[in-house]
């Protein structure tokens, strides 16, 4: 893939680092393009390994039987739903502070994938809750705050789409995302603060996980797979957004010409 970086415009004064070199969409576009296949491949490999561990290595749970195997997608999806929101809010904040176009594009690129993982966490949680709790849904602190997270993602996407000028849309949605960040610690600590139906954290940063080694391994590998997938999806969507928003620039014309 030919590189379309106009180095002349990017060369900083001698001796000074151009911190903004990779914040220009034109420079980021080929980098993301080169990275997507690698992250996608890593996701596929990790997912295969994780599923193998989850179904063929991890034993049957003495209490829940086989139902617990939903954990291998439920927990990674829930982690990713929170993590992606934080990364999205980070780029939204950077976009507000530094007024860099690419930051807002990256935030918009992350939102759909974050919403997807939030829905997956809610869906797999409901299917796990039915046999073990006896109900698809309960207005539990953890479940309710995760549902609010889903609405925050939809709100972010709706607000971005509602404003014609992309730069104004990014600023408005960035403010919205930053206000919504408070929901993430609420989700994480909801099981301790309110201690309603959802069980507490088996894996936490402070103490050793209270899980069997193979079950934990399967879950961690799947979490890494979902993480690699999220990066690949966000970079691919960011490239689409870049082409859509920079459609009138010369380097896009060159890129389109070259890809004919």
């Amino acid at each position, binding site marked *: 893939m030919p590189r379309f970086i106009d180095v002349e415009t990017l060369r900083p004064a001698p001796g000074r680092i151009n911190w903004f070199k990779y914040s220009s969409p034109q420079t980021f576009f080929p980098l993301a393009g080169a990275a997507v296949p690698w992250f996608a491949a890593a996701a596929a490999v990790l997912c295969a390994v994780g599923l193998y561990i989850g179904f063929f290595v991890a034993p049957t749970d003495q209490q829940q039987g*086989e*139902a617990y195997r939903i954990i291998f*997608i439920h927990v990674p999806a829930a982690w990713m739903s929170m993590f992606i929101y934080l990364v999205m809010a980070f780029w939204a904040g950077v976009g507000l502070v530094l007024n860099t176009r690419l930051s807002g594009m990256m935030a918009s690129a992350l939102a759909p994938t974050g919403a997807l993982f939030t829905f*997956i966490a809610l869906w797999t949680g409901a299917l*796990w809750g039915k046999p073990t709790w006896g109900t698809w849904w309960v207005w539990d602190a953890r479940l309710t705050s995760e549902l609010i997270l889903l609405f925050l993602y939809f709100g972010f996407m709706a607000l971005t789409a509602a404003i014609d000028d992309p730069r104004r849309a990014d600023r408005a949605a960035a403010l919205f995302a930053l206000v919504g960040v408070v929901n993430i610690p609420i989700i994480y600590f909801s099981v301790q603060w309110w201690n309603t139906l959802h069980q507490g954290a088996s894996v936490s940063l402070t103490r050793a996980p209270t899980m069997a080694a193979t079950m934990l391994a399967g879950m961690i590998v799947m979490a890494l797979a979902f993480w690699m997938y999220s990066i690949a*999806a966000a970079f691919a969507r960011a*490239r*689409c957004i870049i082409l859509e928003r920079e459609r009138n620039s010369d380097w896009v014309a060159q890129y389109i010409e070259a*890809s004919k």
Partner: protein
Amino acid sequence: MNWESLEAFIAMGGYGLYVWGSYAVTFALVALEVVLLVLRGRGIVAQLARIGAPRRRS
């Protein structure tokens, strides 16, 4: 190897509906997102190719 037979694997200890319902929807949605992304990528390139050279700004 936990499973005696394919049937046991599919039955998933009687929880087959829930486990496979979770996995099927998850991977279906992920596949859908990948397809939508590929279509969006091709769509924008095709559209820009049709439009041709960008309008000359002053």
